């Protein structure tokens, strides 16, 4: 049995998924990838991750938001963080709080910060 925290990465860019997974795996997490909102929701239900990192624009411009709404309805306690290229101003105006995101990390991601935040949730 592993006591590593499971992190689900949902992003339609396989290159981003693989690089984020490499960083998280190398930092003591057990990361997995899903390449669309639909695939992400299936993985969320099957693997019951401790933390989710989700892109916004995938098969639809707000696919990440829609998927997050469902995930937060099914498991409200699971933190879901947005990884996105939308700017801070946009993030403030498109109602990210309505989707239930626990926080936003702008791409390019500051991984020192992200790992510190995930570390707090992993305790």
């Amino acid at each position, binding site marked *: 049995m592993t006591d590593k925290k499971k992190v689900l990465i949902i992003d339609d*860019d396989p290159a981003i998924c693989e*690089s984020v997974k490499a*960083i998280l795996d190398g930092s003591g997490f057990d990361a997995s990838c899903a390449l*669309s909102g639909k695939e992400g929701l299936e993985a969320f239900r099957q693997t019951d991750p401790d933390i989710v990192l989700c892109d916004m624009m995938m098969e639809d411009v707000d696919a990440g938001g829609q998927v997050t709404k469902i995930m937060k309805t099914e498991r409200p306690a699971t933190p879901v963080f947005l990884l996105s290229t939308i*700017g801070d101003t946009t993030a403030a105006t498109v109602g990210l709080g309505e989707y239930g995101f626990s926080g936003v990390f702008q*791409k390019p991601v500051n991984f020192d910060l992200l790992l510190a935040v995930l570390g707090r949730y992993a305790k």
Partner: protein
Amino acid sequence: MSPSLAEIFRREKDAESFRLAVTALGGDFPFSSADMIELGAAYFERFPDRARERNAEEVLRGYATARVAIIEKALLAVDAFRREAYRAMLSDVARVGPSIEALLAASGPDALLAEHDALLAALTALKTTIDEIPKSMIKERFVGGIANLFNILYVIKMRLRRALQEP
């Protein structure tokens, strides 16, 4: 004077021939925010964006197009004889492990850490240029393109830190 990236994009028939043509320039091409916008305009002439029912393949191709140019500019910060190794790593995170092992054996961690810092500074300067692009799908493709290069650079730094800690 080198042709602009937009001219190269319009001239080349596919992503691979564009990559080869840009790589052959060795970073010797204009790459201001205006050049990025011009390249983006050429890209969207060929692959119009749809906000709804996005075509993931075309979005990823846009990121890849931006990355080719960003990588070649950033590699100017690296010693010429190591550029091919960095080009491979920045193009595929799976290449980091074997490539870093080979570079470490040849150069040692201190030299590579200095090179990492130079590459990070080059990418940061390019991100500043990208930030000058007005909010648009062109900007989104460049931000999406450069984002993964920062990620891979972080993976490289993790490997180097580990190498420094090993006896």
